[in-house]
């Protein structure tokens, strides 16, 4: 059975709401290539929701990523070789604020029962991973409370905020020509 589907902005909001407490969240993605992409996408979303300097994008292994992150919220990928070892290291993985693990389904299935119990019901799959372009556009409209026309108007007036989602939004509308050169802002 697939995990609970969730939109990226809502997942980021839920992680950010837990920012002052220990919490473990698992995000399941389709393939290895999506692991790094999802770590970055989620970290991008979180950067605007948590105070500056409170977020770390980890690189494997997880134990090292947590040690380096100190008191920061961590988003980190975990692969099939590391996943089964994490249960034995669980006491050393205690972290004062949320840890978001991103893994393929095959790696996630290798996580041991102790870490899975820490994660509890917080296993998610991003809607963007399974949704069509129209679904993703609906997510963006819902997340930002704007219509496609309003975003196009913003881009045309060159007041588009420095926000990667607006660039993605324009690309999905086949209006990538409106993305200002040198970035999305």
């Amino acid at each position: 059975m697939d995990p609970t589907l969730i939109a990226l902005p809502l997942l980021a909001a839920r992680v950010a709401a837990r920012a002052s407490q220990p919490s473990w969240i698992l995000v399941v993605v389709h393939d290895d290539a999506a692991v790094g992409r999802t770590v970055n996408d989620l970290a991008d979303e979180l950067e605007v929701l948590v105070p500056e300097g409170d977020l770390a994008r980890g690189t494997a292994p997880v134990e090292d990523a947590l040690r380096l992150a100190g008191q920061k919220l961590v988003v980190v990928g975990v692969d099939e070789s590391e996943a089964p070892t994490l249960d034995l290291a669980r006491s050393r993985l205690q972290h004062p604020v949320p840890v978001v693990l991103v893994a393929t389904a095959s790696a996630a299935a290798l996580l041991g029962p102790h870490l899975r119990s820490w994660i509890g019901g917080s296993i998610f799959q991003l809607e963007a991973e399974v949704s069509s372009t129209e679904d993703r556009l609906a997510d963006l409209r819902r997340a930002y409370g704007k219509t496609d026309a309003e975003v196009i108007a913003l881009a045309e007036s060159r007041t588009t905020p420095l926000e990667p989602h607006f660039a993605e939004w324009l690309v999905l509308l086949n209006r990538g020509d409106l993305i200002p050169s040198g970035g999305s802002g």
Partner: protein
Amino acid sequence: MTRLARFREYMARMNPVRDPEQALDLYVEPPEDRSADDIAARFELEPACAQVLVGGVGSGKTTEVLRAVKRLEDANSDILAAYIDVTKFHKLEESLDGVLVSLVARAVLRVTSAKPEQAEQSAMKKLRELSEGVTEWIHPGDSFVASFQRSLESLPGGQPRMTKVTRPSAIVPPSLGSRFAEYVQPLKTTIEPFIGSDHLVFAFDGLDRLSTAHFQTAVRDDIVTLKAAGIGVLVVAPGGMAFGERTTLDLFDKVVLRRAFDPRVPAMRSFLEAIVTRRAPAGALTSGAIDRICRGSGGFLRDLLALAKDAGEAAYVAGHEMVEEADAEKAVGELGRSLAFGLSDQEMTILSAVAKTKRLVVRGEVELALIDKRALATQRDGTWSVHPALLGVLTGAGLLDLKAS
């Protein structure tokens, strides 16, 4: 207090991932199955016994161990008890041979007298070599460095007169084989002047992370050695131990089984409700939400708190002032989907059979894994049940047929 502040306080108090040692003040006395009291009472009667606490993930084993140690400390008795989370000192990925003995030796050496007698000095030296490792200069003729002889002889300029040799601590990573018996007397000699006629008990937590198969071979020699030295031992073991082979369990004088608290039994349900209401600020949850959380937890204490917390998050996102039944329902659904994630066809077949018959025959690793991941729980009447959050999701999706065949 603002709505945000109220929900923040609620979330902090419901955290299931916090250190159990910091949550002892929130403890609620269970109606039965007082594992801590059973364990402490046995040590009071037989201080040098070996006990094992077996239980599923998130069943509250660590809390019970901490309470047992606290009761022994508070009892003003002749027992000195210490709690050691093995995983904080030693990588479980490495061999565990000799680690429990080494940790006891290390703890004893830190508190024994500053001016030991000669016999104690010798005993302490031996323990120190085991627990801390040793570096010394040895003549090349010494048998200890015999293995280095050939390479030393080939060095230009001839053989050095003395060779520096380092033997590492047993703790990372030991390879001591069957030599533990020689540490029984040094342990006795070192401990005796310190404790006199009192007794020592060590509670080792964290070994439940090992697979059942690994646990069976990992601690055997250490338990035998510590028992022989007259030291009481409590070890926390994985849940599958209670249903696997008996050889290792037979090493222990007492086996304490920690079960989930079946929310279908009124007394257990009241206990689970008391845990939630003890932690929740007044008026934070509706009675319907508390009921749904207790039923959905299956009586696993970590799931109980995780559901309460996730329901709080759902209520906050939904704009509710209190945690409502619908918020709890959402949290139970997410937990069920998480428990269902990654289940194999073989596991689904077993779950289906247990849901129909309430019986389980543990044939091997697959059944033990379902117990370890708390998809299955044994009740006090000997029946088995599927975790209710998982059962709800699987039946709701038409993946589990509950009709008796």
